[in-house]
């Protein structure tokens, strides 16, 4: 009798512990979803996440030699977009809205940034490519988005991007859009409430979400 009772107690404890471990494991799984999601995005190009710095490979540095062998040389259009995070006192725009280029040809374009605030301000641009599944064919050799950009009060700057479009780009893609969103790096330097006088006085929230095609 008591044996059966202790048996049952032990079984109850075992089952309870096991189920509690499953629950804790699933809590961990929620966090494991984060790296899993990033890997999944990298494979599928979901959400237009671009990969990091690309080595300027042979195809890129010597496009002419490639075009000799490649009988069907393709041209694609790359469009440029820019957004500024809400409340950030910057002007940020591409200097040209689109370029035609050959696959494999390393191209340079410039983005223009200006800090309206009367204090120094640091920003970080985050790139995104549309359509999403084209993201992995757009390779950036050199990009201002790899590092943080620091502008003094009123300073302006042209920021270069060197990139090429891989020759294995699927044939149904004729146009790619490269978009950058500029985010403030430290929220402590938010200008609107932080700075006593904002340059120009009107350069505050109403210029947020500023985007130029």
């Amino acid at each position: 009798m008591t044996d059966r009772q202790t048996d049952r107690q032990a079984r109850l404890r075992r089952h309870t512990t096991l189920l509690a471990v499953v629950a804790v494991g699933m809590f961990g799984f929620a966090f494991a979803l984060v790296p899993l999601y990033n890997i999944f995005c990298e494979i599928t190009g979901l959400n237009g996440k671009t990969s990091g710095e690309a080595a300027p490979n042979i195809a890129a540095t010597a496009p002419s030699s490639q075009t000799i062998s490649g009988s069907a040389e393709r041209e694609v259009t790359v469009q440029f977009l820019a957004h500024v995070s809400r409340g950030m006192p910057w002007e940020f725009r591409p200097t040209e809205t689109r370029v035609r280029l050959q696959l494999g040809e390393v191209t340079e374009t410039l983005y223009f940034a200006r800090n309206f605030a009367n204090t120094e301000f640091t920003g970080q641009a985050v790139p995104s490519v549309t359509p999403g599944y084209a993201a992995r064919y757009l390779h950036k050799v050199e990009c201002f988005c790899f590092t943080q950009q620091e502008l003094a009060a009123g300073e302006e700057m042209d920021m270069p991007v060197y990139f090429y479009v891989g020759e294995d780009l699927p044939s149904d893609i004729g146009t790619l859009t490269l978009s950058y969103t500029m985010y403030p790096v430290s929220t402590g330097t938010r200008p609107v409430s932080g700075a006593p006088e904002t340059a120009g006085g009107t350069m505050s929230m109403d210029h947020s979400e500023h985007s130029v095609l």
Partner: protein
Amino acid sequence: MIAHADTIPPARHPLIAWILRWILTTNHKEIGTLYLCLSFAMFIVGGAMAMVFRLELAQPGLQYVGADFYNQMVTLHGLVMVFGAVMPAFVGLANWMVPLMIGAPDMALPRLNNFSFWILPFAFFMLLSSLFMQGGAPNFGWTLYAPLSTTYGPPSTDYLIFGVHLMGISSILGAINIIVTIFNLRAPGMTLMKMPLFVWTWLITAFLLIMVMPVLAGAVTMMLTDRHFGTSFFSAAGGGDPVMFQHVFWFFGHPEVYIMILPGFGVASQIIPTFARKKLFGYHSMVYATASIAILSFVVWGHHMFTTGMPLVAELFFMYMTMLIAVPTGVKVFNWVATMWRGSMTYETPMLFALGFVVMFTIGGFSGLMLAIAPADFQYHDTFFVVAHLHYVLYPGAIFAMMAAVYYWLPKWTGNMYNERLGKIHFWSAVFGLNLTFFPMHFTGLGGMPRRIVDYALPYADLNMVSSVGAGILGLTQFLFLYIVVDAIRGGTGKATGQVWDGAEGLEWTLPSPAPLHSFHKPPQVD
């Protein structure tokens, strides 16, 4: 030091003794009752919020509340109804009925049972207190999408986060208790495949709860660290991705909708055979269908996110998987209809609610199939069509099933018969109010009226007025329900026999009515 029984003062004020009895109880029937009472209170609170925004939506333009308060009402209505009304209602029902149905003396872990209930009042106190805080209550919808809930969420969002943590802990502990009870305390001879279907559906629901509630806890924890501790799980500025929040949330969210419906399936599978006076048709297929629905629920979350720009192959995958769920669900509906086929049917109130459940849940299932079609979903997404769909599956699916269960087992709980005439009036007025409220939303939604917006274009005005009138009627029927239950507790229309319903089968009907506080000390023999 352990307090001995004789150190407790012998005479307490009766009121204090009464309060302590309910706070300290470890009896599964009393805890079940506590859950049911809390759930009804939350149902009224969530319903009152619905009345606020239906009043506002009765006419175009802004009449009574502003956009921000409207959003707070919509958000809290969803959270309170899902976590406060439906889930505790079914947990309460499981507490009451699972031990009675499997011939157990109590739940396996009675003190844990007490703990998991008493967490809940504090959770809802935290959630609802956000209404009175500076900046208002959370206003980003019950789905808590980042960055609305992280970057732009009001300060009270943190109370929501901890409230959700507490609810999650409560649900997980409750689910562990139910699984351990079902696995260890079945009466001799009750094999798994002899268990009543309500027990089966709850067993599967409990596993779903253990699998997904921790994921929700993880999601809101990431929200919390994004808000205060400088992480960037959902912030693109730091390399995170707001769309990932939706993936994590709906990985929890879709199994969650089956958590709210599977026990309802179980209730219908108990009630329909009783009043058709036939055995349930296809018991085994019912069990397998329930398990298939539960397993499939883990691979369909993407159908909530068709418009987020996922790759074509993912859209196709989620579309076909979602449609596949219609198969086991169809098996269940077929079995219920086949149970009734050539049965000696009578239409007492529990049966009426169960039939209303089958018919209207099927309507909701069909609009679900429409939404599952990815290309069509681009039109339906975020419109009132979705609102119509989800209320057609949740109101008849969860609330009607719950009311059917209350009418069905109320004589066993109270020992008295409820007023059958009033019960029928309740059913028909609820059916009328429900369809008047939610059916027009199909049309406003197909016409393009967006959800979660306080105002709307003039052409939607008439149908919205109809919906609001229906919502008022539906709200009033809840008080009729409350009256019927209180009336039954106070004597109703006479004493109930132990058997109560002449066609009912199962261990709970072998007990006298009302069921004694302690039952099945000696496990019954099941053959």
